[in-house]
């Protein structure tokens, strides 16, 4: 029976093994970096939408409150996307012929919903409830970023679990007066640490927020 392996086979195998070690190392590192990169988390990337809706214009420019369109944010788990009707409350009067708004008019005429692409995405096994966060005074900007500066919407955070937990384990710095949650610019608070600390102490006591109970798995996963 002839030899299957040649005499140099051992050497070649060892060389290959040696090469494999740095290769795997590179793989692991790049994978780790990749997962946190904006490419991995889609942070800062815009998505094609049926209508190039500008939050910058509607929120920053016109000053429309978030809750005008996202109306169930205070009452339900989901903030809600506006029904075509809501868009048309204004756009039946303004820009009635704009080609950009043709899909909206078509949606109303045909009774078929607009097909928006989600930007703020959570996995299906995460049950997030907007209403309780709004009620406690977690401002919209905390998770969704400065949408008033986004001509086209993109995610401001990657929504990794560790990012959620950072806040759940230490919610105090993120609490704001609930009647102002939709405010975008909190620079006055950020610059006035004392005022912010005094408020969060009050809020934590008033709502009896116990951070040690806020990292139970069951809070979000069920």
């Amino acid at each position, binding site marked *: 029976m002839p030899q299957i392996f040649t005499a140099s086979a051992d050497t070649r195998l060892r060389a290959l093994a040696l090469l494999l070690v740095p290769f795997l190392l590179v793989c692991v590192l790049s994978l780790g970096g990749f997962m946190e990169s904006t490419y991995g988390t889609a942070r800062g990337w815009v998505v094609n939408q049926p209508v190039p809706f500008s939050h910058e214009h509607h929120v920053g420019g016109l000053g429309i409150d978030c809750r005008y369109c996202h109306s169930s944010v205070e*009452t339900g788990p989901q903030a809600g996307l506006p029904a*075509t009707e809501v868009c048309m409350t204004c756009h039946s009067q303004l820009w009635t012929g704009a080609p950009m708004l043709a899909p909206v008019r078509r949606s109303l005429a045909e009774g078929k919903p607009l097909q928006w692409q989600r930007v703020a*995405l959570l996995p299906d096994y995460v049950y997030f409830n907007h209403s309780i966060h709004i009620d406690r005074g977690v401002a919209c900007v905390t998770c969704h970023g400065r949408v008033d500066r986004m001509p086209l919407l993109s995610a401001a955070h990657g929504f990794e679990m560790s990012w959620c937990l950072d806040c759940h384990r230490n919610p105090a710095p993120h609490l704001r007066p609930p009647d102002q949650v939709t405010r975008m610019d909190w620079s006055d608070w950020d610059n006035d640490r004392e005022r912010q600390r005094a408020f969060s102490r009050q809020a934590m006591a008033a709502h009896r927020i116990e951070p040690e109970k806020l990292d139970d798995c069951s809070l979000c996963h069920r």
Partner: protein
Amino acid sequence: MAGHGFSTNFPPQLGAPGGRQFWRSLDELAGTEEFHAFLAAEFPSLMPLANGIERRSLLRAMAASLTLAGLTGCKWDTPETALPYVRAPEFTVPGQPKYYATAVSLSGYALPVVAKTHVGRPVKLEGNTDHPASGGASDVFLQASLLGLYDPDRSQAPRHLGRPATWQAFDADMARRMAEFDATRGAGLRLLTGAVTSPTLLRQIAAMAQRWPEFRWHVSEPLDDGNRRAAAQLAFGARLDRHLHLERADTVICLDDDILGPGPHQARNARCWSQRRKAYRDGDGACRLFVAEPTPTLTGAKAERRLVVSTGRIAELIVALERMIGGETGDIARLDADERQWLERAAAAIHSRPTNSLVTIGANHPPPVQALALRLNSKLKSTAVQFTAPIAASAEDGAVSLVQLAGDMAAGDVQTLLMLDANPFYAAPGELGWSEAADKVPLLVHAGDHYDESAAHSHWHVPLAHELEAWSDARAVDGTASIVQPVVRPLYHGRAAQELLARLMGDYRDSRAIVQATWRAVWRDDFDARWTQALTRGFIEASAPAAVSATPLDDPLGMTPPPADGLTVVIQPDLTIWDGRFANNAWLQELPKPFGKITWGNVIGVSPQLAATRAIRNGDELVLEADGRQVAGPAWIMPGQEANTLTLTLGYGRQRGGHVAQNLGYDAYAFQGVAHQHVIAVTGLQATGRKLKVATTQMHQAIDGYDFVREVDDPRAAASQSPNTARASLYPAKIYDSPSWGMSIDLDACIGCNACVVACTAENNVPVVGKELVAQGREMHWLRVDQYYEGDPVAPRLHFQPVPCMHCEQAPCEMGCPVNAAVHSEDGLNLQVYNRCIGTRTCSSYCPYKVRRFNWFEYTGDDPESLRAMRNPDVTVRSRGVMEKCTYCLQRISAARIAAKREDRPIGDGEIVTACQQACPTQAIVFGDVIDPDSAVSSRKAEPRNYALLEEANTRPRTTYLAKIRPEGDGE
């Protein structure tokens, strides 16, 4: 235990400290080799597959799965489209459920429900707590009706001669034919329905009879109350419906009458009985149940004294009971010692409070026998039974309606037969020869929710709308009417029964207008207010007929001689799929039947004695013969079955009716006679030598220990030897603060009806796995109801025990998990984190209660669109490879916690109701905060009857039980 050839050598673990002998199967009791092999295998699911796999193939598969396992993580998130409304319906908040009060029906009677809907999709049905009949109690059929709505096998479009057709074609054909009937005064036009309580349908049928004087309406309900009404006719001279008031009955004597068993009356009877039982536990009066029956029933399991007798002895027993109550002490003929003792105790119990006593006889017994019981109740002046005019209307020819119709058909008198939600080609007694008679009918029209046996034999088949998608009305068992409102837009192109009949009469309005017309005539000027009120409350107040006084006649009752001794077949409704109408409901097919825990099929129940003499073993194919008709099915030995009685159940052996329904079990209808429908003398019994596969869960998830079901002599006696003393533990004790959740299950109240199991399935998106996998022990139910026998197999005591996750404070599963997927929460819940779980199944092997279920396959991935719409959006749909288990309905806890936090208040006691608790007709389950000493669950746990399952394991379970109360004079 002499005389039936069973070993009394209990395996050692069964006779352990508690001293009581529990067993789950006869193999276990006898300690056979098969049983030891089964135990040795630990998990039946891991037992070698029948088709042997070679070692090399196994290694190859293992290597491949190991290599490919990681790839499942490489799935890139697909972009997700969000679809807002075009015009948002008022008050709809996505993610926030809305509730509608409506009703589903069972055998014509309304089961009042409150439907929970998410953005227009019903996802859960609950009992209506305001309803005067049920008080919120539910049953398996109510819970499973939801799946009926989303059933992908539902008929979706009309068919003519089996080919797809249009409604227009049907309407045109019918209009032409109805015009012809105008000329012949409707001669030859017949309508066949099931039991009808709908005032609108009755109004329409009356209008048809007026327009076509020769038109005839027939009623066929396989399990109806026809005999009961005939009995009332004999006893009181009027056809009346009886209404039991078990809440007033200190003593109930049931002679082969399954009052707590499945059926339209179950929810109400169980709720009333549990009220009485609770009053008794609180020291008010008694709650004694004496049952004599040939085969184990749910009622029998709750009996203080259960007498095993053949159906033929019932007439004898009622006569003897009447004499004993009358004071006759002399020699009452032909009673054996057991019967005499049972009757003496029963008579003594009645004597103590005659007006609070009740004697009932099953609907399958001849009317004269039942009439005796009715008269006896009158003589006792029993307050526990009342009578009203019949709730469900009957056709002119009463109980023999179907026979009459078949006769007319055979004689050629029927030109057109409309079958409205009836399936006589399947459910007519075999002896009737329905198919042959139907061949003589020129036009058969079938309207039903499935393309079933009758649809296939009909010229026209048209789909009916589901009750949850159209308007109608119906009456509950107490006569209270409900408006049935749709809770979802129709999924397919079905029509409501009312709409169908209206169109025959040339009325083209929709079902809402038709139902409104009925009630507009009743309410007149008050219509708008009362209609709205009826819809919001789910029933029409004070719409039940008034009780009438029933004066017993003195006419002699023509007693028929009891059937001769010998083998007798008793045909009963199936405990999970009823008369077959739920055959295509996978939740009910997979639901283990209370006795024997058989799923996906029916068996022939035989007694241990008969099995011993004829050498019959479980699963042996038996062929029964009577009057030239045959039926063949697998034998199943039922401890507690009368020696010469064989039990068949209806509903299986379907030829058509959906993918789930077909090719399961045997058809007991084919075995039914015309005169003897439910009790048949057997002329032949042979075993064919074949073994049939029966998927039973009776021995699955067996707990190793003792004293599972405890009993105490007195409601105030302690059930646990070391109550409330925590044993030392190696693990550090954790102090919990309020709220911290726990559950208490009262075994004294549990009747083993399974409503909780179906409710859990619906609430928690529990997948169905099918017959093959159930047989391998891979059923997924988060909540199971264990059934134990105790004592002599000939007349054992019967016990039920619902077992959800125990949420142990010192949970063994948490110690075992290598990836920390089983963890404890601050509010005392034992959590399973699906996204962490890698499926080692260590937790399951560490769990002493065997309550964890593993997803062996992707059960839900291929689900059709309609089933996806049914899922509860608040609960994760678990995927392949993860462990899952009862969460105490975490989604309901979360909803209540968020609602309370938003209002800055603590969660109130009773604010969180788990699905099983809500479904339970006897309120055996209570859930709440165990730290709050004033909560309902804490006060239950403070009762002396409180004990923990496997106390000795020191797992400190949060789910605890309340012991059953042993009947007086039964102490050991």
